């Protein structure tokens, strides 16, 4: 398959130019950066009507910056650039990001971008689940102002996102919580180059007595059309001293929050059973990072 209707491949130099191009081509336009997602769609015949590709990789959006109250990641930052950034290294809070970056092969890490990975809204992707657990917020750039969209509102359905006509994602921000916290991510996969059978990301903050103050538990990877928030697991953690046993209890609780899909990778029943296992293990990893 190929893009038979493609007429233009643009390499704009700034956001204003992107906005003008999106306005000119409307739904015939598609934003690209690393290209790893669109080629998969083209190969499967899922994208055919695109008239204009707008390559945003030269807008200067490759950066990872730590500010007092937030981490800012530019949309065209590649996986390898994020992994190499000193800002997320050794920091327990960003454990879930580092974990998710362990899985893709070098060729994907060198090309794929944070913005592409998030705005693709593919339910089998890994990093967005970590970003959900970390309360990530998308910055959507329109022709005038930009607006912030919490990731929890960003994924209405498979391959759909909350961006409206004329907008593109230019940044992801992750707030820095005031309490002591850590996060972790785990993926279950058939081989090194496949999408997830199931994945899970958790973030937990604790008080000075070691009790769970706040938590966010998300399960993704074929568990549903979009990643699912495991509210029962969070309730099981709430106010309790964070221990190995509590991780088991919360993992079991997470199973009641999911009603997973069956597909060629795994049955829904298997995914449900593994939800308990992955959430438990991710919580244990988080617990060890808090030590």
């Amino acid at each position, binding site marked *: 398959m*190929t*893009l*038979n209707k*493609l*007429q*233009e*491949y643009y*390499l704009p130099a700034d956001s204003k130019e992107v906005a003008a191009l999106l306005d000119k081509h409307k739904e015939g336009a598609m934003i*690209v950066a*690393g*290209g*790893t997602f669109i*080629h*998969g769609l083209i*190969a*499967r015949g899922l994208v055919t009507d695109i008239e204009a*590709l707008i*390559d945003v*990789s030269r807008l200067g959006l490759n950066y990872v910056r730590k500010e007092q109250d937030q981490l800012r990641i530019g949309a065209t930052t590649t996986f*390898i650039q994020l992994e190499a950034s000193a800002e997320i290294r050794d920091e327990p809070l960003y454990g879930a990001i580092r974990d998710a970056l362990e899985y*893709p*092969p*070098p*060729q*994907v890490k*060198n*090309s794929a971008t944070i913005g592409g990975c998030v705005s693709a809204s593919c339910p089998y992707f890994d990093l967005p689940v970590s970003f959900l657990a970390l309360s990530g917020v998308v910055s959507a750039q329109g022709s005038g102002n930009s607006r912030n969209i919490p990731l929890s509102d960003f994924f209405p359905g498979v391959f759909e996102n909350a961006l409206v006509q004329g907008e593109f994602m230019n940044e992801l921000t992750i707030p820095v919580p005031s309490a002591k916290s850590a996060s972790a991510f785990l993926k279950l996969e058939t081989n*090194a*180059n496949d999408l997830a059978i199931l994945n899970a990301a958790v973030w937990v903050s604790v008080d000075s007595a070691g009790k769970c103050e706040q938590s966010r538990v998300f399960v993704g990877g074929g568990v549903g059309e979009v990643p699912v928030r495991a509210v029962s697991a969070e309730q099981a953690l709430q106010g309790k001293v964070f221990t190995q046993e509590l991780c088991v209890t919360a993992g079991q609780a997470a199973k009641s929050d999911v009603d997973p899909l069956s597909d060629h990778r795994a049955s829904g029943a298997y995914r449900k059973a593994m939800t308990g296992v992955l959430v438990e293990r991710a919580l244990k990893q988080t617990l060890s990072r808090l030590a």
Partner: protein
Amino acid sequence: MKQIINIDINNEVHEVAVEKSDTLIRVLRERLGLLATKRGCDSGGCGCCTVLVDGQAVYSCMTFALSLEGKKITTVEGLRHDGKLDPIQQAFIDADAVQCGYCTCGIMLAARQLLNDNPHPDEEEIRKGISGNLCRCTGYQKIVDAIKLAAASR
């Protein structure tokens, strides 16, 4: 409608007319006749088409040619220098790391990036470095041996 681009492949700038939707592998094989880079799955799953762009391994089936103006591309044809094989190429011969050979060119370039970044990788790092490349013949052991040999020969 085609567009003319200048594209630096193996330290030689080629002026080539490409379709807007052309991927790098199409330009290499069909427009320039550089056939070492192999087309496998054509959707980023097998790694046969791996090349280096500015020293980093990428899938050429997932890279738009028009995104590459000003970047340096290395294919297997460009691995040898001063008439001598790259240590990785020599090690693949010495370790008998090739059976059908279809995956070999891609794996050697993934290995090239690995050794550029990390001249003395351990076995786990080697296996991770080639995790984006499938081989259906060798079971990988001789490929891992070859990369170890190349690392030791430096």
